């Protein structure tokens, strides 16, 4: 299936395929390098889908373990990142369905070291957006996380979630509508600032 994903993946990382091939033969160091390359992206997706750090850790860990175990079934028809996301999304949704919980109050998470101490407003916005996402149904949440946070194309999302592109479109529409309603007051201020 020569699609855009495959080609872009190929172009982006030539040595990725060799790392994958070496990991497949049991080279733990090669896989460790793959983990290093993807851990932030995968953890981020897991965090936004599960809504809290604890579950995000578990989901992302599971994803990398399952990824290593399932490396043999990775046929390279999608990019490695897309494939890994599929595993991570499944792991995260597994956890969400098994133990649904309220989204965490996430004060420390956004306290980046270079964050100016006074940027309280910014942190508040981030917190509200996070909570709005966490309030969405899991399917819609996953779609919007993959699209607007992880930056996947509709086709890639369809592959990750294993649903038709049309379903991705409608889920995204519903998710964004939910977010729009919840964040209506914030978006106006943002727009005013931008404009």
């Amino acid at each position, binding site marked *: 299936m020569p699609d855009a994903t495959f080609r872009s993946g190929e172009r982006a990382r030539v040595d990725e395929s060799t790392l994958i091939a070496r990991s*497949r*033969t*049991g*080279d*733990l160091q090669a*896989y*460790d390098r793959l*983990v*290093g390359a993807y*851990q*932030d992206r*995968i*953890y*981020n997706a897991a*965090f*936004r889908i599960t809504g809290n*750090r604890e579950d*995000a*850790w578990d989901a*992302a*860990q599971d994803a*990398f*373990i*399952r*990824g*290593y*175990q*399932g490396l*043999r*079934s990775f046929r390279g028809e999608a990019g490695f990142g897309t494939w890994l996301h*599929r*595993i991570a999304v*499944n792991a995260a949704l597994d956890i969400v369905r098994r133990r649904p919980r309220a989204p965490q109050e996430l004060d420390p998470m956004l306290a*980046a070291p270079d964050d100016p101490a006074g940027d309280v407003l910014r942190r508040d916005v*981030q917190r509200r*957006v*996070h909570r709005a*996402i966490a309030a969405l149904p899991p399917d819609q949440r996953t779609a*919007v996380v993959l*699209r*607007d*946070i992880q930056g996947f194309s*509709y086709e890639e999302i369809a592959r990750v979630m294993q649903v038709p592109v049309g379903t991705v*479109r*409608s889920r*995204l*529409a519903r998710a*964004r*509508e939910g*977010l*729009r309603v*919840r*964040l*209506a007051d*914030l*978006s*106006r201020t*943002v*727009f005013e600032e*931008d404009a």
Partner: protein
Amino acid sequence: MMTRNHVTELLSAYVDEQVSPAERSRIETHLSQCAQCRGHLESLRGSVALVRGLDPVPAPAGFQEAVRARVAETAVSPRRAVALPRLRLSWKTAGVAAAALLVGIFSVNLLREMQPRVVTLEGQRDERQMGQSAGERSAATAPKGAGPLAPSAQPAPGAGNIAPPAATIPGFRRIIRAAHVTLAVDDFDGAVRRLVAIAEGAGGFVANSSYAQTGSTPEGSFTLRVPAPRFGAVLEDIERLGTVEVRRIGGQDVTEEFVDLQARVRNLERHEQRLLSFMDHATKVSELLAIEQELARVRGEIELLTGRLRFIGNQVDLATVEVAMRQRTPKAGGFWDFGATLRRMQAAFLMTIRQILGAIEKAGVLISALAPVLLLAGLGWLIVRRVRARTV
């Protein structure tokens, strides 16, 4: 009408430029006319921008190390990559392996349970035949020795009146027993003497014997006639004379013919009686002559049938045992009996081939017996793999 419809649901895709040209023109036409939808699009873009503006949350410290440790835990050895079915030490595979083992044990036990049953069935049938031959005569005189067939007849004693008597009344069966035994003996002359002794000891005789000495090994064949009840015992005694190479035991059930002959003889005898009474009343010579002629024919037939009856009775009473014997080791082999060595080599060669063929046959039987189980296991494995692939 289309333009009056709001395009709210398409706006999300429109933001991503994921709409068809037709949709796009419809949306844009609508947007140019509908302020409400324009506002909607604006706020949608705003919220999307908010989501896109979220700071990425990197994996916490120690995440990669934790993955490394867990992966190393699951990985067994690099050699595993070469092995055909990559075994992964997880609870799932352990469970699958345990299930497969259980199924295997179960099917092997099933096979083992079925195998001896077949063997014992054959054994029982043999016993019954032997017991019948041995108990047959005694059954005719003593009803208690009716043999193993009796219990099946006892529950319905009245049924004997309706069914053919030969089939149901124990001890009524007329069976001609015959056996052929080929023996290899160490001492040929001694074996012949003991053979004669066995026949006479059982109340029978050697009906036929022939000797031959080809090369250094004497051979002979003998026909023994022994009373049917002693058939089994005699056979056992004979087989003790040497190594049995061939044994064939045959039984011919002549009950039906016997009964038929008896009935025909009875009919003919009645006919004879009637002819005799006709003769008493006959007045003309021509009548007398005709009756005489018919009487002669009937008597001839009675003679024939009783002769056949007697022959069958004799065959039934005296079982036939054919014994072919040959000397096992040459009497005067000289320094080295090359022929014997050759024969032994041939025998060993054939034995090995027979064993190999036997093993192949057993393997074939086993595989075909396990085929359904393997099929199921394979199917299960495929499903497990599919399920695993889906979860991955």
